[in-house]
């Protein structure tokens, strides 16, 4: 090519000096909240993202969206989130490649099968079609599966997968249409307080005066709250994923094994995308890839689906889960610092939870709805010693 292209990039706009709400983190959670707040009429919302869109966990996850959970709250919330996912493309006018191929959770032991059965009963009470299937039916759903290692499986045909990136862009674009100021490549260095209350956010591109700051920074959230002396009980945990060469569509559900954390599904691009638990990872925020992960994943995958042995892995990457000691998130207000709010600690499933949590957070903050949830998942449960549980965390 000889001709040069014309410069068309629009330079970033100046950071506002004042905002009613500053959201720290331009991932799916921060953007979903910003959009829902703007929908309810909240003005002067600023979202600051320290890197590019999709740079954190929102751009690094497997895109799974499921309502199969063991706690009533997660089942209820994810049922709503999936309904929001299925309308997303129409509403936001962006293709998120949502495919409802179901989720098949495999059980290797009778004890695990019993646990899945109890969860399935709870899910049915909430109107989901989840049921326990035997080996023969596992074969009907995934004919290539080597079922000899598994005694039963939990099957919900209405769970699905999305392509995470356009989901983030869809919210970002919709936010901007409603007047939300979204600033990427803008990192927070200080949260100012006056008489103990939030009064401003200092960033790499200037200061914003605000009385409300919402921390939606995923695994980076503890770094943000530490700026005002608040220690969160959560910590980052690296999780790796890889993607294969594209194949003709053949695999219907996302298959998951809670014993070793193996999961895999086929994306709309045809790639097999999956991951596995890995207890031996470096401490802290680390997004590097490891050979050990590929070894663990490939071994488990080729045992579960021997036919995939000849398939080639094209790329691997890593992101950080935001892990809490009781497996439940940290949301709502922060007692120690009035004006600070949290939406973090989502244990690697924040992406699928974002559509519903964005909606509920906006209603809670502006209209005082959903008080029970925002009390139960509040950080203060750690100060008061009332911890929760969830047994169906994958990876």
């Amino acid at each position, binding site marked *: *090519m000889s*001709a*040069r*292209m*014309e*410069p*068309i*990039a*629009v330079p*970033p706009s100046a950071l506002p000096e004042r905002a009613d709400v500053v959201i720290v983190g331009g991932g799916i959670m921060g953007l979903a909240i910003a959009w829902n707040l703007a929908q309810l009429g909240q003005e002067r919302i600023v979202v600051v993202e320290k890197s*590019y*869109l*999709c*740079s954190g966990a929102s*751009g690094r996850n497997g895109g799974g969206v499921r309502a199969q959970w063991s706690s009533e709250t997660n089942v209820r919330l994810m049922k709503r989130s999936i309904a929001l996912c299925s309308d997303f493309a129409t509403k936001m006018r962006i293709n998120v490649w949502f495919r409802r191929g179901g989720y098949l959770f495999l059980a290797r032991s009778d004890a695990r099968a019993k646990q899945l059965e109890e969860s399935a009963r709870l899910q049915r009470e909430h109107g989901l079609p989840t049921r326990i299937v035997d080996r023969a039916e596992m074969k009907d759903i995934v004919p290539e599966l080597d079922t000899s290692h598994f005694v039963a499986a939990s099957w919900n045909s209405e769970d699905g997968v999305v392509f995470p*990136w356009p989901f983030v*862009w869809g919210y970002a*674009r919709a936010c901007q249409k409603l007047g939300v100021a979204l600033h*990427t*490549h803008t990192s927070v260095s200080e949260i100012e307080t006056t008489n103990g209350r939030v009064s401003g956010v200092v960033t790499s591109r200037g200061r914003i005066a605000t009385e409300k700051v919402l921390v939606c920074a995923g695994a980076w959230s503890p770094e943000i709250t530490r700026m005002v002396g608040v220690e969160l009980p959560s910590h980052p945990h690296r999780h790796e994923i890889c993607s*294969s*060469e594209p194949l003709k569509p053949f695999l219907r559900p996302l298959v998951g094994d809670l014993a070793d954390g193996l999961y895999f599904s086929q994306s709309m691009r045809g790639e097999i995308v999956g991951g596995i638990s890995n207890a031996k990872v470096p401490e802290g925020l680390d997004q590097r*890839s490891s*050979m*050990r992960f*590929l*070894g*663990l*994943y*490939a*071994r488990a*995958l*080729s045992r579960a689906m021997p036919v*995939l*042995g*000849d*398939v*080639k*892995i*094209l*790329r*691997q*990457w890593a992101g950080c889960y935001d892990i809490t000691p009781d497996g439940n998130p940290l949301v709502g207000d922060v007692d120690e610092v009035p004006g600070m709010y949290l939406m973090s600690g989502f244990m690697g499933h924040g992406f699928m939870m974002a559509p519903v949590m964005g909606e509920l957070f906006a209603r809670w903050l502006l209209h005082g709805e959903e008080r029970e949830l925002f009390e139960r998942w509040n950080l203060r449960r750690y100060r008061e010693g009332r911890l929760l549980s969830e047994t169906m965390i994958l990876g």
Partner: protein
Amino acid sequence: MSDKIVVCRCEDVTTHELEEAVRAGHRDLESLKRYTGFGTGWCQGKQCVALCSRLLIELGGDAPEGPITARPPFHPISVARLARVLGEDE
């Protein structure tokens, strides 16, 4: 010059798609990669990343400090071969 110029052969990304992405606000290389999909196919960017970087700069975007993050493996490798990487007790 043809109206349709492919910049990433693995993922069929054209110059028009780069322009559209930059117009939509994707000013940096990593963001541009995600929005257009260049560099995410069989060659993992080995053939297209230099060209896309140059075009991004011409379009007025941010000059990249380096190539896109390298994603292992260097060459595509089969699941069966990778399955033999670790010892049985690992």
